[in-house]
Structures are given as structure tokens and as C-alpha cells.
């Protein structure tokens, strides 16, 4: 079949494509297609009802001043008024946003690196591995409830060995208040920050278990140290996991109920202030979402998996070899053509050996 297609001319191919268009698909194919759509319906409905509709609604809300009264909702269209008010008149939003950006940029790498280290340790041959894995996953359950608030209020969120007051003072003396505060907060809530790494540890563990052990064996035979194995084998193989964990952590930190911006949005939503309310909160949520998306995009750009250098070299070599082969064939063809032409000329007696004179040039 492939050979037949190869031999077909362009025109024939075009005709075949035209004919294929008018061909009816088989019963089985149709059934598969229909079943596929049927099975996708719940997802489409879910996405439409719980994603597209709320998104559209919240954007519409953001353009309105909304009052929720017992007699119904009152919409008053204000256009970009809510956005302008948030960006120009609301002092809290911008301050919280800078706090959020600074603390996220600092805390996300801390969480991801910590998770990687713990995952590597949990992947080693140690006794009670399962128990330790459970211990590190336990905060995932705890931090999702009010228990975290209680623990934090008891001072359990910070490492007592870290003199946070001195650290804050030192940071504050070097950096402006706006940046120094979120940095100090990260150190003040170090335990909480590290507690956020339960899921990431699991993801890294699954990634580590997928790495082929023979690679380590081969590296060891070649005299590679543990350090070299980490940089040359473990880390390159975990690249996609690092990206996944980074994005997960950014989203988790951004959506966390303790996040001051989330609290601000919630407070604005139920504020007694006439200018605030659902519309104002929706506008704030949209602005915040855009910032989070940009942050996720930046992290993704920074960590997106690039092609392996070795693979690149191999591909380049294959390409070069193919090119060389093509050139060789071309030269051979040309030589054959030239030889043939010379033969023809010679047969006609047009070419005699060494007959050219200087004057011929």
C-alpha cells in the first residue's frame, strides 16, 4: 500500500483525498465516535456548569456593583470601575499583592527543594520507610483544617531555633519594608511552609521510583560519585516532576485560605461598604488570577523541560550523516551523468585527447 502511494502522482493523491471525503465511515467507526462523545458529555457539562459559567458570571459581576437583597440581586453596571478602584484607591490590595509575590517567590523553591530532599531520603533503603512516608504526608490532612490556625496561634508555625526577631531586623535594615516583611514572614512560618510539601514529596517519590536503576549501576561502574549521579541522572530525570510540583505549589499557596489576598477578597465580598460586595470581590479575584497565571507562566518558562543535550547531539549526528549520504549520492549521480555525456561526445568524435590549444581559451 505504501509502495502504491509512493508511486502515485500528486494529482492522483489529490483525487484520492477528494474521494475519501465522500466515503462514509464504517459502522464500528461511527459507534466508537458516538460512544466517545457520550462519555465526554458529563465532562463537557461539568466544565460548562462549574468552569465556564462561573468564569463568565464572575467576569460579568466584576463589571457591576452588586447588592444581594432578599428581593433579588441588584446589578449596577460600572464597567471597569471596580478594577480602577482596586488598583488606584484600595491600598490593601497592592500591598498584599507585593507581599504575596515576594513570599511565593521565596517559599515555592524552599518547599520544592525540601520535598525533593525528603523524597530522596524516603526512597533510600531505610527501616520504617512506610511510617516515615506517613509522617510526612500527615500535614496534608492537618493543614487543611482549623487545626493549623490553632497550631500557628500557639507558635508552632516557626522554628524556635531561628531568631526571627533578629532575622527580621537584619533583613529590614538591608531591604525596604515592603519586601523585608514577606521575607521575614517566610522565616517566621518556616514549619508551616515545610508542611505544605506533603503532596510534592509523593510526586517526587513516584518520579524517583521510575528512574531506571541500571543507569545508576552504569554510572557507578564508570566511577561516578553519588553527587555526580544526582546531578547527571536524578535531577535530569525529575525535571518534569519539578515543573509539576512548582506549579502545584504556586497554585496551592495562592489558593490557600490563609493567604491574605484570599481573605481580603472574601471580606470584600461580604463587606458592608456599599462600593464593595460581589462585584468588587470578583474584580479583585480576576486581577489576582491574572497575577497568579503570570507567576505560573514564569515558573513554567524557567523550568520547562528542555531536550536532553545527548539526544540533541545524536539527532544532529544522524542529520549530518543523512546529509552526507545525500551529498554522496548526488555526487555519484553527477559523476555518472558526466561520464555518460563524455562517452556520448567521444562517440560523436567531438572529443579527442589533448587537442586543445592555448588559443582556444
Amino acid at each position, binding site marked *: 500500500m505504501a509502495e502504491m502511494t509512493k508511486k502515485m502522482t500528486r494529482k492522483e493523491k489529490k483525487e484520492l483525498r477528494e474521494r475519501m471525503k465522500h466515503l462514509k465511515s464504517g459502522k464500528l467507526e461511527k*459507534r466508537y465516535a458516538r*460512544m466517545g462523545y*457520550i*462519555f465526554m*458529555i*458529563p465532562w463537557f*457539562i*461539568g466544565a460548562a*456548569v*462549574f468552569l465556564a459559567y462561573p468564569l463568565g458570571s464572575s467576569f460579568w459581576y466584576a463589571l457591576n456593583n452588586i*447588592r*444581594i*437583597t*432578599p*428581593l*433579588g*440581586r*441588584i446589578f*449596577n453596571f460600572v464597567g471597569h470601575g471596580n478594577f480602577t478602584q482596586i488598583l488606584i484607591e484600595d*491600598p490593601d490590595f497592592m500591598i498584599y499583592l507585593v507581599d504575596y509575590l515576594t513570599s511565593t517567590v521565596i517559599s515555592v523553591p524552599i518547599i520544592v527543594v525540601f520535598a525533593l530532599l525528603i523524597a530522596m531520603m524516603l526512597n533510600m533503603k531505610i527501616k520504617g520507610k512506610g511510617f516515615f512516608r506517613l509522617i510526612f504526608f500527615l500535614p496534608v490532612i492537618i493543614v487543611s483544617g482549623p487545626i493549623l490556625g490553632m497550631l500557628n496561634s500557639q507558635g508552632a508555625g516557626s522554628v524556635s531555633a531561628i531568631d526571627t526577631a533578629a532575622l527580621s531586623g537584619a533583613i529590614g535594615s538591608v531591604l525596604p519594608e515592603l519586601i523585608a516583611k514577606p521575607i521575614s514572614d517566610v522565616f517566621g512560618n518556616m514549619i508551616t511552609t515545610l508542611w505544605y510539601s506533603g503532596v510534592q514529596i509523593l510526586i517526587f517519590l513516584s518520579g524517583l521510583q521510575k528512574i531506571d536503576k541500571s543507569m545508576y549501576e552504569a554510572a557507578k561502574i564508570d566511577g561516578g560519585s553519588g553527587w555526580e549521579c544526582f546531578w547527571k541522572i536524578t535531577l535530569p530525570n525529575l525535571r518534569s516532576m519539578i515543573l509539576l510540583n512548582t506549579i502545584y505549589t504556586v497554585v496551592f499557596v495562592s489558593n490557600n485560605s490563609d493567604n491574605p489576598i484570599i481573605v481580603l477578597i*472574601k471580606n470584600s*465580598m*461580604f*463587606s*458592608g*461598604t*456599599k462600593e464593595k*460586595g460581589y462585584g468588587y470581590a470578583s474584580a479583585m479575584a480576576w486581577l489576582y488570577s491574572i497575577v497568579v497565571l503570570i507567576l505560573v507562566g514564569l515558573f513554567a518558562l524557567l523550568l520547562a523541560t528542555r531536550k536532553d543535550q545527548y539526544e540533541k547531539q545524536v539527532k544532529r549526528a544522524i542529520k549530518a550523516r543523512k546529509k552526507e549520504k545525500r551529498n554522496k549520492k548526488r555526487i555519484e549521480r553527477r559523476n555518472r551523468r558526466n561520464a555518460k555525456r563524455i562517452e556520448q561526445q567521444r562517440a560523436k568524435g567531438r572529443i579527442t585527447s589533448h587537442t586543445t590549444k592555448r588559443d582556444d581559451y
Partner: protein
Amino acid sequence: MKKRILSILLAGCMAAGVLAGCGNGGNPGTTAAPSGGEAGGNTGSTGPATSVTNDFELVTVDGSSHQYKKYKDMTSENITLTYFHFDQDETVQLLAERFMKIYPNITVNVQYENVANYNTTLSTLVSNGQAPDVIMHSDCDYALSNMLLADISSFFNTDDETKNLADTINSAGLGTYNLEGGMRYSVPVKFFPGAMFVDRNVLETLNLKVPTQNWTWSEMTQLIKDATVLNSPDGMAYYGLGYYNRLDSYYGIAARQDIIGEFGFNGKVFDLTEWAVGEQEFSNLKLGGYIAPTTETQAMEDWCGDWEGWAGNTGHAALFSEAFWTFQNTWNTPGYKDSYNLDVVPYVIPAVSEADAGANHHSIATIDYGGITTSCQHPREAYELLKFMSYGVDGWYTRCEIYSDETIVNAMGTALKYDVMPVPITKDEGVWDEYIKVYCAGMDDEHTQLWRDYFKSCMQPISFGWTSIAGYWNFCDQYFNSIGIHDLVDNGTAQAADYVEEANRKANYFHAQAMLDYFGPGAYNVLTESEIAEYEKMKADNQ
């Protein structure tokens, strides 16, 4: 074929489930929300009653000797009313049960939410078309901006019982938002009068004279200074005042009798001049070292060796600006009385001028308000329920019964009397006799008389601004609290008087804007033309 049908059916079921899950009970949100009433619960073809006829019969219910008024203009049909509150829940549940015994055809559905989540939950209920019939509210800006409250003036003004409420409810128009049309949207539900508590044992130790009930503001501040002995013989300093409420709020009301709201509000405009005097005086007392350290501070640790200490149990603070409920919640609880050598007695917040101090005068009080929602379909019945839960005489007799029975306890096992028990805002003598009996149970005659005197002198309450003045919360949120005036004055970096002019402008601006937003066209639309012009001008002048 069977598989295909089955898969289509399953997919259909899933889709229907998804859609049903996100339904809101059929209320589109843009039309009138249904009330909590059941079908057929209307008062009849004649329409709902619009006033109180005061025509009643006396009935008794099982378990009580009190004779209750059963009003004849109430519906005889079976209806359900929803009461949403942040009051003491066990008490409200018992009150609702008693109300249902008086009116067996009315089912009261009580819903409780704590103050922290109150507005959130209420908004959710309202947006889901499940607006309660009767609600409590804390900050009035939230309730008014969302048009939660219906005008109940026709009931309130025709009800005989409302003539006998604490004077300022009517004279200062608390809950009316001072509208020319005489509308009333809120009524006081919970009343906690302001008080200055004095530990007589401390005064005795320091050999200081116990003040009289008609003391003046200057006498009080002098007593605070006299009772401060930093180098006392027992090694622990004595302080003149342990504070919970700042004195500037107290002074702002006690200064003049024409002030009917915080920050010198006279019903139309703000004037923070008097407030500034009180603020500065309080800050000077703080800076002068006359005020006891607050909890969880190094100063507290240095003073009594306990980081989490409280001035109220040290026996080394003479006066307290604690909330009213602190007495029953803490000082009067059996364990507390045995553990600390305290003799805490109440005093009315003193007036600034001698003339005012000699008579009953305005004093700040914590009052939580309530009202009937705009979607309520049984306003007459809802009004009766609201009255029973708040200032109604029958409701208060029932409350006194509940509070006197110390076997009735809350979830923590504490008798309800010790769990934020409010004060009657009615002046009905029978209610007050019962209340004093409950409140002063176990006290000797001298203390009982002190409490009687105090209660008599505190019936001119003025509520905190956020509960009764439109735009007050916006002013605090967007100006006063955002620049941290209290801190600036307290640490001596600014003088309170410096802010008066600007704060007046801001407060008047926010108030005018709120009045127009809440009561103007597009909202309640009850402002007269002259009011609209007045508030427009006020807004423009203070822009």
C-alpha cells in the same frame, strides 16, 4: 444495543445529577425571594396586617406561671418563621419554644451563626433565596446596603409596649437612622449598658474614698490618678484603670446630651471635637502610666509575672472599663469569687458636666439590633417574634425564668446566666423586679442596692456607631482605622485635635454618601427631596 442504551441512560443521569446539584431551589435571584413561610401561610385575602391592634387575650402555657399576651390580630393559619441570630443560642431556642406554645400555629425555625461568620452566612442564605424572616444585625451598613431590613414603623409606632422602652430608643431614634419620614428599620435586640467597674477592695487598701453614683468625669480621672501607686509596699504596682473599652468612646457620649452617636453625631452631622478631648485625655493617662498593662505584653509580664495576665484578677487595679457582661461571665462566677479578693461594683459612666451627672444622662452601650427582612411574607407575626426575642415584656419574663434556672446550661456546661446575659431594654417594673432577682441572686442587700441604682441610671443608652449610624463603618474602614489614629495619639506622635477637621469632613462625607446610597433612589427610595438635597450638599461640601 443494550450497552448503547445503558450508556446513554447513564450519561443522561450523570448530566441531570450535575444540573440538579447546582440548582438553587428555583429562585432565579432577580425576582422576589420566597420567605421561610409555608405555602398557604398568608394571612388571608385581606393581606398582611400593617399595624398592631393591641387587642389580646391572656394565656398561660405549661411550665410557667406567667400570663402571656396572645394578640388577636395574629394569623390563625399555620406558618413558619425563620429567626437568624448571633445571640446565646440555647436561650433563643427556649424562647422560640415558648413563643410556639403561645402561638401553636406558628413554627419558629431558629438558625444560629457566630458573629465572625454571621454576615457571610446571611449573604449566602439571601443569595440562595432562603432569606430568614427575622434577623439580628451587627453593623448597620451591611444590613442597609443589602436592603435586608423592612420598614417596621407601622408596627412599632402602634405597639403599646414600645412606649415603655429605654428613653433614647425613641428620643434619639436608635434604629431609625434619623429619617424625616419616620421609618424604622431596626429595633434593639440585645442591650448591654456601659459601665465603669470599681474594685472597692483596692480603694480600701489605698485608703481612697468610694465614689458616688452621680460622679463626674473629672472625679473619675482624678480617682484613676490617685489609685495609681507604682511603688506600693507589697511590691506590685497599683494602676488606676484596667481597660477593655477606650475612654474616648465613653467621653464622646458623656460630654453632651445632644450627642446621639459616636464621634459627636447629632443625627445629621458629625463633630469630633468632644471625641478628641476624650481621646487625648485617655492617651495622656496611658502615657502617664495610669493605665494597667494589657494582656500578652512584656509590661504585663513585668507587672504580674504572667504574659497572659489580666488586670481584672490582679487585685491591683481600681477601675475597669470592661464590657458589661464581664461581671456575670467572670467576676461573679462561683470559682472566681472564691479565688480572688475582689469587690467589684458597677458605676454608670460619668457625665462630663456636673449638671448632667446629677441626672440620668446618656452613656454609651453595646446594643445589637434586629429587624424583619424585606422578603418576609408575615410581617405582623414576624414583628411579634422579633419583639418576643428582644424588648417584649413576655419575652423578658421568659428570659428571667430561663436565667434563674441554673440547671439549664450551654454547650460548655455553664449556666445561661453566666453566658452573656443581656439587660432588659424595657422599663416594665415587673420585668425589672424579676431581672434584679436573677441578676443579684446570692448578693447581699448592699450590693443588690448598688446594682439597682446602677440599672436605674443606665437607661439612657447610646449605641456604638457601627450599629446605628449609616456610613459609620465605611468611615472607620476607609479613613479612621486605615491611618491608625488611636496608635498615633497613644504613642504621642500626634494630637487628637489635629485630626478633628479632616475627620469631620470624612465622617460627614461617608455618612451623606451612605444615606443617599441606602435610602435614596435605586435603594429604599424613602428620602424626601429636601433630604436628598441636604445629603448631596453635605457630600459635595466634604468631598
